[in-house]
């Protein structure tokens, strides 16, 4: 809705105030769970369900959580996982997208349809069979086993193909006349032009794999391979009992890197998710 028109309508009375009140109520309700968790995490346990304006702030819950489980290792595992998956995705999707965007090869139509199947049937849907495959490959309970099914991404291929298709043919031909081979053209012409799409895809991919849970839960079984999400679940369902202060501290700690990045680069995040979603 345009802003000018919205305004001219909005001037017309109580409707506007009711709407503002509604928007703010929803905004507060939406923020509430996170605010509540922060309250619990930053105050001593006796205040975890008890609100007092002057309750002392503390960082102890985070320290206790950090010391109660190998979170440093979990962080390392997640960072390794996310980096490995993203690096592989960028290379593989770029190559495949280039093939679909610029080559008329035999069977390209069917191949493209087969690639798109992964948009509906994500690897976690086939977890029983993929677990069997990882067993056969002898890599159960390892970080590559978590990442491997996601390294070829239909979503990434589609997104980059759409972008590459908008690159003018003339640029392509000019580079060709100057004697550049197909891979050089890809690297010198297509990749630089698609930079914003790469950034958008990278943000979405990192968020997805930082947060992914079910498949890593199934395929990992030890401290050396578990990502943060699985580590958090093992920690909070273990002998922690129900010390909510420590659990919420651990929970916020797990989400913190993404949350902080989001707060700093809010516009970039929103636009990336938007760009990635519009096909």
């Amino acid at each position, binding site marked *: 809705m345009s802003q000018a028109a919205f305004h001219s*309508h909005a001037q017309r009375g109580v409707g506007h105030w009711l709407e503002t009140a*509604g928007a703010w109520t929803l905004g507060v309700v939406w923020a509430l*769970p996170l605010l509540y968790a922060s309250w619990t995490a930053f105050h001593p346990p006796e205040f975890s369900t008890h609100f007092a304006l002057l309750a002392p702030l503390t960082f102890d819950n985070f320290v206790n959580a950090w010391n109660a489980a190998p979170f440093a290792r979990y962080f390392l595992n997640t960072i390794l996982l996310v980096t490995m998956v993203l690096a592989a995705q960028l290379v593989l999707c770029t190559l495949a997208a280039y093939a679909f965007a610029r080559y008329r090869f035999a069977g390209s139509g069917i191949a493209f349809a087969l690639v798109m199947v992964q948009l509906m049937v994500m690897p976690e849907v*086939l977890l029983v069979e993929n677990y*069997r495959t990882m067993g056969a490959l002898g890599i159960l309970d390892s970080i590559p086993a978590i990442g491997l099914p996601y390294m*070829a991404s239909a979503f990434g291929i589609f997104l980059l193909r759409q972008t590459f298709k908008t690159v003018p043919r003339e640029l392509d031909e000019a580079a060709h006349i100057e004697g550049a081979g197909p891979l050089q053209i890809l690297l010198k012409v297509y990749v630089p032009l698609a930079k914003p799409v790469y950034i958008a895809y990278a943000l979405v991919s990192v968020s997805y794999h930082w947060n992914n849970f*079910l498949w890593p839960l199934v395929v990992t079984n030890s401290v050396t391979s578990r990502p943060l999400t699985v580590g958090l679940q093992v920690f909070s369902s273990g002998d922690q009992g129900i010390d909510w202060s420590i659990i919420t501290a651990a929970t916020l700690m797990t*989400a913190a890197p993404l949350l902080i990045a989001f707060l700093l680069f809010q516009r970039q995040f929103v636009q990336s998710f938007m760009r990635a979603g519009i096909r």
Partner: protein
Amino acid sequence: MTRLQANLHGWLLLLPSAVLLVLFTHYPAASTLWHSFFSTPKGAHAAAFVGLDNYSAMVDDPVFWKVLRNNVVFALGTIPMSIALAIAMALWVNGKIAGRAWLRLSFFAPTVLPLIAVANIWLFFYTPQYGLLEQFTGMLGLPSHNWLGSQNTVLGCLVVVAVWKEAGFFMIFYLAALQGIPPNLEEAAAIEGASRWTFFRRVTFPLLMPTTLFVLVNAVINAFRLVDHIVVMTKGGPDNASALLLYYIYDVGFKFWDSAYAAALTMVLLLILGSLALAQWLFIERRIHYR
């Protein structure tokens, strides 16, 4: 470039992705179908061909039907609600409301949080006696209620979590669409004296239709794909009242280690996702039109 060269280059570029996609999407889908016709190997007993036994066991399994029903209820509870809220959020954030930057932040933040972390926070929120919800209802003088422990309320609680997590994500697609609607349309409507509600119903909403269909497809996929919060909050209980199809597959496959039955269940999930893809292709790709 010769034809042969084009074929060779095209397939070479595609090869690495194709190998991985076949290995982790197409092969497992086919192998799920294959294994669903066999029994689960147990100790000395190798897998034996059992025909449709796994499927007839499934039809006779009350838990399967309950889980399927739960999933439908979960989808019907989550999808219309999150779409309606997403549209409202987008209209507000796109308009001239005071503090819209804060509102956008608040609406979108759940999207970047891990669902498992979200589930932990909500678990605390729903905790009997100590949780915020109980404190609030207690303040109103309502009797204490175990929200996640009761068959009647547990699924509703999970719906709330899913709506909270997803609405802000869908909001940004509507935001993008709203920015593409020409402002003069609304000015014209204002001159004609149309109320904002009429304008929304007759102009904005129809123009948002392609976005709604896109969001709808994603929402349906998510309703069948996201089960992380169940692992944390309820483990499918009490008495399977909150188990969804994929969670049941996980349970059967990795707690009872009955991979054959899990394969039959997975076929149902694949069938659901497949018909969704077909419906999208038949109706949505071809018939988006503006009225």
